[in-house]
Every structure is written in C-alpha cells, then in structure tokens.
C-alpha cells in the first residue's frame, strides 16, 4: 500500500493506494493514522478511491483507527468508498459507524460543523 497525506482546510486527507491486507497494508495504515494523531491532527479523512483490495485484517485496522481517533476527541471519515469495500463494511454492520462521502469538498466541509 502507498499512503500520502494532504492538508486541506484543517483536514488531513490520507490518500491510500493498493491493498490493505494482512501482512501488507494493515499495519501501515495503523502507523500512519497513529502518527497523524500524535501530531495533533483531529480531522482525518481517508480517501479509499484507489484501494484495490481489503480483507478482514484491513477492516479491523480501519475500525481500530476509527476508535483511536475518536478516543482522542478527533473525527475519522471515509471518502470515495469503492462498491466492493462498501459491501464488506455493510455485511459486518460497520457502514453506519463511518461517515462516508462521495465528494471531497463536502467531506472537508463536514468537519467544520
């Protein structure tokens, strides 16, 4: 997995690319989010558009990130969820846990509220 972070109007947008699967992207995702949290970032938006595969470990990490950001008083939201990843979140009743956006500007604006 490749990760890169952009700052847009007070929101840290994390662009992910590739696989979030056991032994490859899963730990990397956690470490990237932990670093953002340590740096004091409270508004985090994960852009999933270019995530090609996710498995239960990847989903687990996503949930873990959500929890750790929320526990620090921050917000973690998702952008551009590919249909199959949306399915995977849906069947485990996680889709309602996350705020999911289709438009980056709407997503960024939502943090201001």
């Amino acid at each position, binding site marked *: 997995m490749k990760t890169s972070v952009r700052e847009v109007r007070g929101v840290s947008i994390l662009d992910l690319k590739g696989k979030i699967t*056991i032994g490859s992207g899963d730990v990397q995702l956690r470490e990237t989010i932990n670093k953002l949290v340590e740096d004091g970032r409270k508004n985090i938006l994960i852009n999933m558009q270019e995530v090609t595969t996710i*498995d*239960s*470990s990847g989903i*687990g990490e996503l949930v873990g990130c959500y929890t750790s950001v929320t526990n620090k008083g921050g917000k973690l939201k998702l952008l551009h969820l590919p249909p*199959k990843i949306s399915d*995977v979140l849906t*069947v*485990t*009743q996680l889709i309602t846990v996350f705020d999911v956006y289709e438009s980056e500007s709407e997503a960024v604006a939502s943090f201001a509220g």
Partner: protein
Amino acid sequence: MSASKPSVDAGPVRMSLSSRFENIEMAQHLCGKLLEGREVPEETKHWILMALREGLANAIKHGNSQNLEKRVHVEMRVEQDTLEIRIRDEGSGFDPERVSDPLAPENRLKTSGRGIFYMKTFMDDVRFDRYKGGGMEIVLTKSLNAGKE
C-alpha cells in the same frame, strides 16, 4: 487463442505453501486460473477469492502461527459447477462453535474476529473439520452458476 475451455472437470488441483502471508496471492492466482473460461461473473470470483484469502490468513496466522516450517495445504476442484476449496493447516485446531459473533454489539468495533463471518457470507457453505493428526481443515463451497450476491 483464449484459455482452453474446461469442458471436462480438470480434477483436483492441490498445492501447499509455506506459512507466509505473501503466499496467499499464489493460491488466489491459481484459483483464478481454475475459474477461467467458466463464465463465472467477475463479482462472484471476487468474493470467492476474498473468502479464500480469509481462510488462508487464518491457517497461516492462527493455525500455523506463521511458523515457516509448517505448511498450508490447499485443494481446489470444480465438479458439477460447484467449486470446492479445502484449506488445511498444521496447527492445533479450534472449536468453531466458540468463535464470537462479530455482529454482536459488544464486538462490532473490535479490530478482529470477522474472517470466518466473511467466508460464510461470501460462500454457500463453510465446513470445519479437525484433521487427523492435528490441524484444522476448512471446506468452502460455492455454486458457480447461481450467485448468492
């Protein structure tokens, strides 16, 4: 020429892998090849490969504890339009009855515990057997002409 049409069943394909997560893709790749030319919808194929990934990850992680001396054994076959995948590890097995429900409110936000649930969701059937001489064998089946999703 496109892939040779598997008009006859090609017989079971067996493989074994050392206990590394990187090897999961090899088995997925072979399974993709086995399904080639069978007019399996892309969608169905995707979920099969995800279930296979989950089964292999469990065999490598929980079964073989990533011990490189231990192997994961996979058998795949298509018979009468049904795919059967068997995944066997060399671990000490477990009781599938005692696995907790990932949809229970207290588990919803756990960072693990969804693999078996995904396998059951995406395949028609998931069976667990203790293999003689230790280790767990899981048997995943999926009809290739009637999609669940």
